[in-house]
């Protein structure tokens, strides 16, 4: 986009989204019995700012809709209208519509019809509630081009509608006067119509009492969509009537629109022509220039890029930047010190200076690293803030009283994490309300308070971020999960998994123990996504549950994606890095302790538990192992499974900077990335769960 406004628009979208969020949060925190005037002011101000900005940046549709909200809020804030729970719901819906407006405007799309209709309905409702006499004079602060209040406030910014009307087949028989319909329509504004006779059957099949007519109508009017719909009231049935707003003022209409007006091309013809249009990919495939799979892949990449560019900015506190600037200043000084010291490096004094400067450099580099990482960190509240609303809605829908408590919202997380956590956390919270919580009666029965509690907690501890979703609901049903797992063949018959392993099964794709699938959850799709995303972030999931007491699901995530605490090991003559998070312990054992199962699978008994031994040298195809009689094993754990990895030497523990292998190469099974060691060599970072899969795969192939 070469539009100089583009960058301001981006800022607008961000700010407006934040304002909408704050409106929602304020609405939800309102105590309806004793409404704080300050809260009402906050609401009003937020709506006002969105409206003003939307007008300035050329989104009249958003501006005029927000104006409706604002004028609804005005009498409330003046104390002329009470904030009722109904009104709160309406305004919440309004906030949703603003969001959806913003979303579509960001992608340069018009608001989908369904939402336009929802908007029209909402606007009417907002007005209805207005206590008639206090129809306060239009708010003073109308800075935006909106049509004069009263005449048609539901009118969107468009200058009219494009209508497709297919007359019902029995129109003549029912005595519908189509002529009058068009006359009425013409009264609303300037109308232009194109009859579509394409549905007419051949003459000898034509029943003269049937109506096969359709019209494409272009109506330029200032009337709201409702008025237009009214005209068609008696003939609209099913989907025979489609009304769309003409493109908003300022927006460039598509070519078809011009052709309609200028060259009198009928919309039906335009539709037909458009239907012949094919996506570029398809044309290329037809020409035999490219394979369909390649096109699919390219489309995926495009979509990925699109979502990336959408969320590619971070707002950083000025304070954070100031500290960085200071630090860079200090670095410059240190550099000068080093340069000075190197000039007299053969003297005693120079040497001292040098080591002092190096020490300082070390400290500064570390601090700089931390602070730069800190820029990417945003408070977890960015995800959490949406849940009060969600829980509120869900509880209402399901008839459950649920209270949500949150803790540690200020905990900072990498921005990438936040984005990838939205879906998983939404699923988990939704699941808690839907499945975790019992019905009110059931709660009373088991002696629990009728109001259920869901606690969201975020904390940072020992290089990890913990996010907990804890409910006091019915807990997981161990037996049911086990039965289901056996039925579905996820577990081999006769197995006795630990509670931990069993609980993690709820994250298997398609695994749901709910008898009834509701439209909220229970299809066993969401939990799979949770696991995928958490795994992609290098984290793990823990589940604690007690029948009848509740469930706690804990996501354990690394602090950041870019740096990892690693254990460096030597295998053959290569260096590898284990993520320290997955290492439990390391120990030496004699080969005699390693037992063979089924011929070639090796296990070792450790404190009564049999753990598979993975010979890394063989698995990574680094040549055959020489038998030294002793083995050095690193006990690792991932997703509740353990394995002992045989290595040749432990080199040490260090923080490593993660580099992508995929940038110039490709993904490698069992390897999650690469890093650069102190001596400049590349070391590969091992993907523990990938290795386990690899080993399992190798074993099945051999069997």
């Amino acid at each position, binding site marked *: 986009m070469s539009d100089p406004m583009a960058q301001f628009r981006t800022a607008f979208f961000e700010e407006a989204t934040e304002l909408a969020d704050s409106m929602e949060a304020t609405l939800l925190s309102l105590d309806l019995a004793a409404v704080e005037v300050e809260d009402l002011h906050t609401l009003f101000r937020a709506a006002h700012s969105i409206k003003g900005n939307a007008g300035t940046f050329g989104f009249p549709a958003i501006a005029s809709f927000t104006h409706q909200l604002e004028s609804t809020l005005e009498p409330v804030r003046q104390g002329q209208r009470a904030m009722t729970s109904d009104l709160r719901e309406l305004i919440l819906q309004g906030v949703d519509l603003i969001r959806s407006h913003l979303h579509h405007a960001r992608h340069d799309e018009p608001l989908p019809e369904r939402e336009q209709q929802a908007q029209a309905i909402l606007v009417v409702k907002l007005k209805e509630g207005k206590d008639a006499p206090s129809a306060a004079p239009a708010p003073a602060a109308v800075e935006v081009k909106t049509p004069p209040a009263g005449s048609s406030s539901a009118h969107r910014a468009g200058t009219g509608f494009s209508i497709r009307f297919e007359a019902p087949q029995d129109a003549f028989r029912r005595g519908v006067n189509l002529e009058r319909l068009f006359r009425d329509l013409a009264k609303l504004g300037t109308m232009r119509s194109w009859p579509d006779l394409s549905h007419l059957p051949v003459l000898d099949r034509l029943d003269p009492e049937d109506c096969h007519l359709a019209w494409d109508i272009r109506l330029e009017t200032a009337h709201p969509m409702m008025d237009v719909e009214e005209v068609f009231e008696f003939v609209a049935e099913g989907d025979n009537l489609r009304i769309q707003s003409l493109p908003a003022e300022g927006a460039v209409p598509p070519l078809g629109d011009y052709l309609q007006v200028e060259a009198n091309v009928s919309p039906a013809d335009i539709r037909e022509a458009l239907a012949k249009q094919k996506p570029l990919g398809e044309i290329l495939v037809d020409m035999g220039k490219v394979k369909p799979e390649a096109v699919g892949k390219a489309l995926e990449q495009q979509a990925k890029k699109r979502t990336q560019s959408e969320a590619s900015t971070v707002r950083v506190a000025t304070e954070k930047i100031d500290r960085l600037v200071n630090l860079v200043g200090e670095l410059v000084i240190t550099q000068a010190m080093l340069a000075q010291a190197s000039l007299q490096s053969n003297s005693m004094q120079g040497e001292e200076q040098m080591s002092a400067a190096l020490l300082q450099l070390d400290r500064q580099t570390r601090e700089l690293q931390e602070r730069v990482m800190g820029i990417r960190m945003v408070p977890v509240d960015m995800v959490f803030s949406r849940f009060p609303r969600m829980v509120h809605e869900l509880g209402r829908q399901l008839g459950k009283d649920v209270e949500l408590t949150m803790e540690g919202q200020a905990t900072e997380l990498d921005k990438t994490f936040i984005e990838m956590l939205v879906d998983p956390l939404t699923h988990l919270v939704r699941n808690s309300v839907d499945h975790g919580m019992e019905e009110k009666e059931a709660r009373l029965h088991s002696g629990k308070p009728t109001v259920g509690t869901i606690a969201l907690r975020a904390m940072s501890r020992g290089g990890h971020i913990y996010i907990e979703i804890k409910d006091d609901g019915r807990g997981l049903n161990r037996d049911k999960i086990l039965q289901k797992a056996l039925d579905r063949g996820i577990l081999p018959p006769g197995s006795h998994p630990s509670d931990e392993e069993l609980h993690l099964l709820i994250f298997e794709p398609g695994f749901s123990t709910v008898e009834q699938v509701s439209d909220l959850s229970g299809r066993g799709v969401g939990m799979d996504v949770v696991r995928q995303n958490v795994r992609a972030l290098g984290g793990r999931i823990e589940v604690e549950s007690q029948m009848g007491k509740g469930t706690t699901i804990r996501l354990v995530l690394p602090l950041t994606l870019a740096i990892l605490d690693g254990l460096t090991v030597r295998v053959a003559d290569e260096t590898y890095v284990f993520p320290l998070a997955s290492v439990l312990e390391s120990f030496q054992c004699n080969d005699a302790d390693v037992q063979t199962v089924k011929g070639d699978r090796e296990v070792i008994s450790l404190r009564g538990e049999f753990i598979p031994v993975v010979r890394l040298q063989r698995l990574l195809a680094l040549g055959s192992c020489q038998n030294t009689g002793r083995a050095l094993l690193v006990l690792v754990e991932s997703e509740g499974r353990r394995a002992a990895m045989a290595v040749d030497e432990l080199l040490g523990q260090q923080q490593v900077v993660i*580099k992508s*292998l995929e940038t110039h190469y490709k993904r490698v099974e069992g390897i999650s990335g690469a890093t650069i060691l102190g001596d400049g060599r590349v070391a590969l970072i091992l993907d523990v769960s990938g290795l386990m899969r690899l080993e399992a795969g190798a074993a099945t192939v051999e069997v």
Partner: protein
Amino acid sequence: MATTEASSQALQQVLCFALAGEAYALPILKVREIQAQATITRIPKAPPYMPGVINLRGAIVPILELRHRFSLGAAPEDTRPVIVIVEVQGRTVGIRVDSVSDVLDLDPGSIRPAPELGTQTALGREFIAGLATLPGAAGTDSMLILLDLDRLLTDNELVALESATT
């Protein structure tokens, strides 16, 4: 072939290098730099012609073992291979060759299309952009093989593997 002609028009300066006694050349515009031998970290289960990666100032760059690619056998003990870093379609790859000789200006007109080499040859015709003759010192002309880098780096299993794993 159409592509041969198209690329020969664009060829002007080429970097010449030796591989098992033969002279090869790459379009200089694709070459980013030349590196002395760096330590290669092996990638598990990688194909032998792409044995591992090196650290190129912080970037992890895979190495293409050209001798393996063309089935020319391992380099003799006394050669000290050089890595030519090239950039093709946004991907940086290091190509390991025996030695780099010099940069030549080639007249696009002197480049001939490669003759049919038969399907048994490892160095298939598809990797050759053309052949050029170099006037030798004693009047004996020598032959220079111009490689088609895009084909070499995109037409191989690297891409096939990638699409299989993603």
